[in-house]
């Protein structure tokens, strides 16, 4: 069965510092991995995805994520955090061999960036 784990309920960083939001996954075969962000009372917005190729993928708003197959991880990173990055972040996975393509989401990590 597919699953996603986000081990931290909340991550706190100071503005200007680098940030990392962790994600590990379990899926049969090759994974397709996604990060979404959710602002209060809004829907989920797509940030980036890993399908194949370079393990470091770049996305919206300066975010990037590193795929590590041996550690089954897909951590979200940003070199310099902004206060406006404060939001709820979700990691999601589907299997390349899935016949439905449905996304399984983690429980979410709240990112708090303090000035």
């Amino acid at each position, binding site marked *: 069965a597919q699953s996603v784990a986000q081990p931290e309920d909340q991550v706190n960083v100071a503005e200007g510092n680098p940030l990392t939001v962790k994600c590990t996954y379990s899926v049969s075969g090759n994974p397709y991995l996604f990060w979404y962000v959710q602002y209060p009372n809004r*829907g*989920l917005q797509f940030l980036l*995805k890993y399908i194949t190729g370079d393990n470091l993928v770049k996305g919206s708003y300066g975010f990037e994520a590193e795929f590590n197959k041996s550690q089954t991880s897909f951590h979200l990173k940003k070199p310099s955090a902004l206060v406006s990055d404060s939001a709820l972040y*979700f990691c999601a996975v589907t299997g390349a061999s*899935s016949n439905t*393509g449905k996304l399984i989401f983690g429980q979410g990590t709240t990112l708090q960036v303090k000035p």
Partner: protein
Amino acid sequence: EAGVAQSPRYKIIEKRQSVAFWCNPISGHATLYWYQQILGQGPKLLIQFQNNGVVDDSQLPKDRFSAERLKGVDSTLKIQPAKLEDSAVYLCASRHRRSNTGELFFGEGSRLTVL
């Protein structure tokens, strides 16, 4: 390009009453999803449509939840009768094709409170 439209944004009902949510996906998107997001959890897939056919409804509580997408465009999710544990945000999402590599586009959600 218009995004995924959902209505109503907020709904408060008493237990055992019924409620319906409406979703209009992005034009041309054949795949439509309804997710349930309970406070503090990640979105959980309720049902997936490909055009007007159901692809996956394995996690839909069919004794009380129903959904349809009669003309392969907009969709309605109904709950009857509602229970307290149905309090959640109901997110509609769409994707251009059934391909596993495409990201989902989400609406802003319909927040249901059951008293």
